[in-house]
């Protein structure tokens, strides 16, 4: 059975957050006709509460690199990249280099800002340009790095690829658990588990009133404790907040600062909308109408998914915790 079919059978979805079927991504790049192709392993991981890629690089770098090599062979790429956030770059570069050996895989240090981890922006960075997302289409599978078809997958995805090809894949994923919990860390558990089960199994289910953020400690949706009978979303993180002890404005300010620091400031909704949101949070003056306008603009008019997604935590938090439906 060829690799792409194996990935399809395993029903592997990208573990970077977007959850796109991996086999389809591979097929598109494989099908593309070009004199050159690239494979990029995205290890830009930088959102609060998400740290499982770091864990994998620390503990299973061989599997990750094996996954990259399989991808390069499968789609016909001569060259691969591991695109690492600066912290991981310093920590793991020497070890990774050793494992890579003579294979054509380049270790590349990520550009500044959260947006530099977005798959098209990271291509810009590798090309030596400013970290800004590209217009889609064309998709990376047609015109990616330096204009050639490019496959970008997350660290965990490559790990899973390696496991699938070895016949050792058990439909597990790596959960990052953080916040007001007893045992923060990365846990490998079945991907079908609900959030409540994950928290219980890992001994992290709180005995106080709480809510969580699923799939990213900034961009993740806020869920109440009665909403946890569902699997985790996005990059597979669970951040637990003690309802009584968490100051709503401090929390929202942390999110908004993260987005403002991490965005590219190119488009009006994201640059200005987030700034106005921050002003309102700082002044603790949450005008529902203005909020709803800003959210509408962010979600519908932003250039890329950073701006579009930035609405998710605020909307869900305001509705569920602060009773403001904007």
């Amino acid at each position, binding site marked *: 059975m060829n690799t792409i079919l194996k990935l399809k059978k395993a029903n592997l979805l990208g573990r970077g957050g977007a959850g796109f079927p991996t086999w389809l991504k591979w097929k598109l790049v494989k099908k593309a006709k070009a004199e050159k192709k690239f494979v990029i392993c995205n290890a830009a991981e930088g959102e609060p509460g998400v740290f499982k890629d770091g864990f994998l690089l620390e503990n299973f770098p061989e599997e990750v690199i094996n996954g990259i090599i399989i991808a390069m062979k499968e789609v016909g790429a001569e060259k691969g990249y591991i695109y690492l956030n600066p912290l991981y770059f310093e920590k793991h570069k020497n070890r990774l280099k050793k494992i890579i050996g003579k294979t054509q895989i380049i270790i590349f240090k990520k550009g500044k800002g959260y947006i530099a981890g977005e798959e098209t922006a990271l291509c810009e960075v590798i090309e030596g340009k*400013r970290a800004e997302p590209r*217009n889609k289409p064309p998709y990376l599978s047609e015109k990616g790095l330096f204009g050639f078809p490019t496959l970008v997958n997350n660290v965990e995805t490559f790990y899973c690829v390696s496991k699938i090809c070895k016949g050792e894949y058990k439909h597990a994923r790596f959960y990052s658990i953080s916040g007001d919990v007893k045992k923060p860390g990365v846990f490998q558990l079945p991907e079908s588990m609900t959030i409540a089960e994950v928290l219980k199994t890992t001994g992290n289910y709180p005995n106080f009133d709480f809510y969580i953020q699923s799939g990213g400690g900034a961009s993740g949706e806020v869920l109440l404790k009665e909403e946890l009978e569902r699997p985790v979303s996005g990059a597979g993180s669970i951040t637990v907040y003690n309802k009584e002890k968490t100051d709503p404005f401090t929390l929202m300010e942390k999110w908004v*600062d993260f987005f*403002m*620091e991490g965005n*590219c*400031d*190119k*488009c*009006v*909704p994201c*640059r*200005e*909308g987030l*700034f*106005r949101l921050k*002003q309102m949070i700082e002044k603790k003056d949450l005008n529902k109408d*203005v909020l709803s*306008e*800003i959210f*509408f*603009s962010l979600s*519908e*008019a*932003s*250039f890329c998914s950073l701006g579009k997604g930035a609405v998710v935590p605020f909307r869900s938090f305001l509705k569920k915790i602060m009773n403001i439906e904007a």
Partner: protein
Amino acid sequence: MRKKKIKIMIDGREIICFQGQTILEVARKNDLKIPNLCCHPDLEHSQSCRLCLVSIKDRKGFFTACSTKVENGMIITSDSPEIKKLRKINLEMIFAQHVESCRDCMRSYNCQLLSLAEEYDLDLGKFSDRKKDYPVMQFGSAILFKSQKCIDCRNCERICKKQGVGFLEVQEHGPFLEIGPCSENNKDCVYCGQCIVHCPVAAFEEADSIKSVEAALKDKKNFVVFQFAPSVRVSIGEEFGLPYGTVVTGRLIGALRELGAKKVFDVSVGADITTIEEANELLERVRKQQKLPMFTSCCPAWVRFVELYYPKFMPRLTSVRSPHIILGGIIKKYVAEKEKIDPKRIVVVSIMPCTSKKYEITKKELKIGELNPVDHVLTVHELACLFKSHSIDLNFVKEGKLDQILGEPSGGGVIFGASGGVTESALRSAIRKLTGRKNARINFKKVRGLEEIKEAEVKLGDVLLRVAVVNGLGNAKRLLENNPKQYDYVEVMACPGGCIGGGGQPIPANPAIRKKRAQSLYEIDKQKQIRLADDNPVVKELYEKFLNNKEVVHKVCHTQYYPQQKEKIKIIKQ
């Protein structure tokens, strides 16, 4: 390759268009208004303002018209309640970045933002001004950056990069990435002013010379003389609602007289002298096969570019001064003597399509003794403002005539305003000189047009002269770095299309508008009886009576070049 015709629908209207066009291009061609601020035909779309959002049938979400290509059968809505709402929110946020200072804004009578504010009924008090404490900076004596008006579309950064300069860059300011001047020591502005022409909200403006010109006019001791550049006659009409490219030479002269000009001259006459001097120098260099290719030097942004970034090419620049500097010298020396006016009383004001000319007149090496050939430079844009503040309207003004002591220009002098004009005029003169034939070749169509690099081979006696005509500094940079030696004569104008696309020209400017301005200049040339600088009677007279010895010619018509350094950026207001 012929483009495929397709059919689309915008707001219920069926439109035939071409594959490969964007929705916005099609809308513009068909007079459908889709609001946008950041999209400029000279630049790749940046999609930053998010105003041109439209929706497309059977597709989820909204799409920017500037970047979305049309497809056959596409059904587009450009104006739904949701779209309106999104535009309104975005506009309110843009408005809250841009500190309105309409009273002293050059564009207040032609402001896209204001008209959109009205159209979308904005609540301007919703948000506080984000940039109210941002500074005003001045680059050299030419350009102002009012950063409190900037809406971060980054068109200026992109055009500056396209110009091969890269002085304006995106910098980290707190949590924002914003435009600022480069602090690197070896990088400076060349004052081409393309940032002004490409800024949608007048965050860039020419450094103000209106006040000093008004002061000069008020002081009765002064004898204020105006001279206007070749391209001004085909562009200033736009500031008064006239169609692009309307020729308003007579009206312009009349208006200047109404303003209080003691004399009005045409810089194109100076261009005739530039032509003759430059043709001589070219023939000389070709004969000696020295310092080739010879580069033109009429464009001060180009000269500064060479002096700043490529000083090793300085000897290749022709030593001939630019037309308005030559004519300014003639006014203060020749006209002053003939008309018995104390040259110290004369104030020469040049009307220029250019911001870099404001910098040029500060160059010490251009002084003739104690005299500055030119005292003030007004851009076309500034002159229009001055006219308006004096209630002078080019639509109603009486036509005037040039002061005949400096006569009328040849056609060759007039086409200096378009890319290729200097070359064509100089070639006319060089061939005449070499052959002595009265009916020597006049038209050199290969050097005309808006293409960024034009090449021609011209027979100059026994020599085949290899000519390149370049507009846009980025293209000039490429030529310098590749192989300039493949040419003998190279004309460079910093701005797209030459001076008709200058940084001091009316806004908007785009390829279609520049084309119309250029066409009008060539039409004037075609209509002229005298098309060759050498045949211009006043020029002949000047050479007989004034420019009749080497020393005077050298002082009035030639200059030297010096390596330049970065000028300190002035913070005017914070």
